[in-house]
Each structure stands twice: as structure tokens, then as C-alpha cells.
């Protein structure tokens, strides 16, 4: 019997000195602790980065190695949960979805999102966003139900789906609200996130709650306060266009939409 000898796989680890070859960037992280002081201070940290390093990874590097006291909220690390929204070099972005290399800067300034109350450092309070979202009745309102055995399933054509599909990709990260110039001065404004969700369910042909939702958004700090700056759509990491949703929802109120 012939014996075949399989050659052992050779693994070579290339060891390089981090100081000599690895690129480093400076993270300027906003430090603020509202109960003690409302003043924002920036602390600088030098962190090593690779081509694929994300802002969140670099913040976590700082937490693990340089200063564990930085407050940051994160969870999925894949732009699905919407937890790690923050202002990176002046623009609201998801830290897990932003690579250091794409920022093309050696100094990365990281601040908490605008238009949200700050809990500490980079963590902001989402209470208003979630309560507004809830007020928009983000569910299908229909007396009939698909779960009853005697009722038929709700028929929806691809064209029906197309009307609202992109708006259902919202992950409630709050970047749109943070970028909204109206929200900066009008704290009672519903905001692009809530309005886009109101449109998402109103445009759904299975939904019968159009009248209720239109009544909710048709108030002095509702849909009419949008100035169509479009910054909400510009910052959305999921490609949702809240500015368009707001215009389409206005169409319903002006009698253009069905």
C-alpha cells in the first residue's frame, strides 16, 4: 500500500513593529458630563489604524488601552442596531460604519449628536426619538387580521411595496434628527425620523390608519415645519430619504396623494 504524506502547512507570521510601520491618527473626543458641567472639553488620543479600522474600533481601542471612562453606546458593529450615532468630523455618522481611511484626515473629531440631550461624552438620550416614533403608530392599523383563519391574506403588489419599502429600512439611529436644522431650534418638532415613519405606514396599502396619522403630523410643530433642507437624507446610513417622505406625506395633506 502506498502511503501519501501530506506536507504540513507552513504559517508565517510577519511581525512588524507597530511604531515603525503602522499609521496613527489623533482622535479628538468630546468629554462632557452634564450633571457636573455643561462645558465640552476635547481630549486627544493617538491610536494605531489599519485601512479597515472603523471609528468605533478606534474609540474602543482608546477605551481598552488609554482611557476606559469614555462613554459610548454601541452594539451590533454592523450598522443594524443604530446605537453608535455620533458627529464625526462635523457630520452625523454611525461610528461602526465609518472607516478612518474614508475620512482622509489625521485628526478625527468625535462629538455627541446634535439635537439630543447628552447623557455623557458620546452617549445621548434617545427618549424623545423613541416616544415620537411611538406616537406615529408604527404598525399596520387594520380591523381585519391576517392571523384569523377566515380572512384572506393582505394582497400587496411589488408596486405597492415600492411606495414604502425604503422607509422601512430605518434603524432609528437618530442621525437624520441630528442633522435637521429645524430640530436645532424647534425642540417640539416631530423630526424627519418620525415623519418618515408616519409616511411609511400611511403609504402601506394594508394600513387603515391614514386619518389618525395625518391628524398627528398636522399640528403646529408637525410636518409643516420642515424646510426641505435635505440634510436628513444626506446623512442616512441606510439610504432612506426622509425629506422625500415628508414631501409625499404633505401631498396627502394637500390632497395630492390618494
Amino acid at each position, binding site marked *: 500500500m502506498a502511503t501519501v504524506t501530506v506536507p504540513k502547512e507552513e504559517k508565517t507570521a510577519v511581525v512588524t513593529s507597530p511604531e515603525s510601520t503602522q499609521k496613527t491618527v489623533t482622535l479628538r473626543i468630546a468629554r462632557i458630563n452634564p450633571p457636573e458641567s455643561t462645558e465640552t472639553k476635547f481630549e486627544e488620543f493617538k491610536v494605531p489604524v489599519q485601512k479597515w479600522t472603523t471609528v468605533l474600533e478606534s474609540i474602543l481601542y482608546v477605551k481598552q488601552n488609554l482611557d476606559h471612562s469614555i462613554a459610548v453606546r454601541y452594539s451590533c458593529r454592523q450598522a443594524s442596531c443604530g446605537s453608535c450615532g455620533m458627529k464625526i468630523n462635523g457630520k452625523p455618522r454611525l461610528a461602526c460604519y465609518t472607516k478612518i481611511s474614508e475620512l482622509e484626515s489625521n485628526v478625527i473629531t468625535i462629538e455627541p449628536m446634535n439635537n439630543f440631550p447628552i447623557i455623557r461624552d458620546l452617549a445621548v438620550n434617545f427618549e424623545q426619538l423613541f416616544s415620537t416614533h411611538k406616537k406615529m403608530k408604527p404598525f399596520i392599523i387594520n380591523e381585519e387580521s391576517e392571523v384569523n383563519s377566515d380572512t384572506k391574506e393582505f394582497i400587496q403588489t411589488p408596486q405597492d411595496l415600492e411606495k414604502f419599502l425604503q422607509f422601512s429600512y430605518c434603524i432609528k439611529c437618530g442621525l437624520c434628527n441630528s442633522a435637521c436644522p*429645524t430640530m436645532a*431650534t*424647534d*425642540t*417640539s*418638532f416631530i423630526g424627519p425620523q418620525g415623519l418618515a415613519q408616519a409616511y411609511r405606514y400611511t403609504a402601506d396599502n394594508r394600513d387603515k390608519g391614514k386619518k389618525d396619522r395625518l391628524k398627528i403630523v*398636522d*399640528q*403646529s*410643530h*408637525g*410636518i*409643516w*415645519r420642515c424646510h426641505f433642507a435635505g440634510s436628513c437624507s444626506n446623512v442616512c446610513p441606510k439610504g432612506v430619504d426622509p425629506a422625500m417622505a415628508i414631501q409625499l406625506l404633505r401631498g396627502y*395633506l*394637500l390632497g395630492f396623494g390618494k
Partner: protein
Amino acid sequence: MRESIIMKIHYGTALGAVALVAVHILMRMSQKFSDSLAYQNVLANYHFLPYALMLEVILVLLSVHGFNGLRVILLELKQGATYERAINYGSIAAMAILIAYGSRTILMAGMGIS
């Protein structure tokens, strides 16, 4: 009143004002600009009933549109129940005062009272 109705009025008054102010400007161009501002020509405008009525409509449209615009700006600037109520009623009052004062001018000029 529902905000959508207010905003429909806001957009409607804007369109109406643009159209009527265009007519008003075109009327100025029917003669030399300096002549159009001559005392007797200005008075003649007020004595011509359709034109005086058009001026009255422009006054109403611009007052409603302008003060509602100001109301919206002020509501976005600051929030609070008392403040918002004051702004809403204040705008209506300012609108009514301006329309009343402007109408008085149009009426007096039309009737030849100086």
C-alpha cells in the same frame, strides 16, 4: 384651525399676491414710472373702483401671508404653551390692525378724504 388649512391659506395667499402684485407692477409700467407716482395719478388709482379693490385684496393677501410667516418663524424660534398662544393671537391681531389701517387709507383716498 388645523395647520394644514393654515398652510393652504399661506400658499394660496402667496400665489394670489404674486399674481396681483405683478398686475400692480405692470400698471406702473403703462406710463413713465415718475408719472405713475404723481399725486393726481396715485389718487386716480384709488378713485377707480376695480383698482382700489385690487389694492385692498393685495393688502389682505400680503398681511395674512406675512404675519403667518412671521408666526411660523417665531414658533420655531422658541417653544412653550403661553408663548405659542401669545404668538398665535398676536399674529392675528397684528394682521387685523394692518388690514384695518390699510383699508382706512384706501377708503379715505377713494372717497377723497385727506
